[in-house]
């Protein structure tokens, strides 16, 4: 994957985070709009699934960029990339499970 693809996704996920994150914040903090959002459980689950994916991609790509700038050597760059991907996937699985538990679906 070229660096431009990864960074384009970084920007796209940033925009997705703003939209889905706003819905998440309103659901948890606003008494009126919050009830409206939380009542559609499956829609909210869908929103949170997308939010979680976008947030994890954006955050871990940011960490990858910072680590690559700190340790620029080629072999470390590859290792960091794959390690971050692995941690990201595991965190998503764990996070999705926590989400299902929090919404009372499992």
């Amino acid at each position, binding site marked *: 994957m*070229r*660096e*431009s*693809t*990864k*960074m*384009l996704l970084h920007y796209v996920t940033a925009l997705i985070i703003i939209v889905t994150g706003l819905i998440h914040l309103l659901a948890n903090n606003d008494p009126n709009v919050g009830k409206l959002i939380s009542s559609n459980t499956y829609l909210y689950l869908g929103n949170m699934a997308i939010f979680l994916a976008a947030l994890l991609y954006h955050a871990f790509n940011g960490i990858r*960029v910072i680590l*690559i*700038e*700190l340790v*620029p*050597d080629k072999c470390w*760059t590859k290792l960091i990339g794959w390690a971050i991907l692995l941690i990201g996937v595991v965190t998503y699985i764990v996070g999705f499970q926590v989400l299902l538990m929090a919404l009372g679906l499992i």
Partner: protein
Amino acid sequence: MESSSVMESSMDLWKPVGTVKIRVYKYNPRKDFAPGWKEYEIEVSRGTTILDALLRIKEETDPSLAFRYSCGQALCGSCAMMVNGRQMLICRTRVLEVAKGGKIELRPLDNFPIIRDLACDFKSFFDKHRAVKPWIIRKDVEELENPTGDYKQTIEEYARYYQFTDCLKCGACYSACPTVATDHEYLGPQALSQAYRYIVDTRDDGLEERIAVVDSDHGCWRCHFATSCSDVCPKYVDPAQGIQLLKKLILRSKLGFKPHKPAEVLPSKIGEVKRG
């Protein structure tokens, strides 16, 4: 012609107006264990540049002081260094312009290996410049070898890259960049803006060759728009603008938009010159 008392003579620029303390970074990696500082006191006038002051110090006080200079008129880019924590060309910076409380601190450029005192090693900097292939690349090799004419270019096409041609390769932008501080593989603002200068030049046809270099782990995407490069550039090249435009160009090329068609040849007498 009598001179009015109100009108200053241009020679007033060179009348001594006071003394300034210049604190210089002294380090010889071959001999010294750690860097040190040495302070010199020098009499200056309004017109004295930091280069004038250093040359006088070298002549009169300390001949061992090492620093680079050449043209003395902001054309060659040899004399860039840190003056009070900011990258500048010392040949065109007046001492009194930057002296804070009558003191100046001189250091070699940040993030460049030091050869001695204020002189830095530019090998890695030039290698990165070479890596982006800073020359016109064309597919019509026959035309390059045996030219039949000039390449056609309008003034609007020229305006798209002229700003970046003023680069002196002084190293100030590369030194000011925060990414360069940790990432020694990062190409740097100078190389990236020169990559943009050549890609966008309508005479050039080398987008594919250069994209592999600039669209890499340590290419233009490691720029985070800190803008210090454009802030310190002595020739107003604005490398930050070049890099952001390069990013936009790379994304457009992913969608299939090429920056331009390679310029066509205008036949001229150049092809008729016969070399003996």
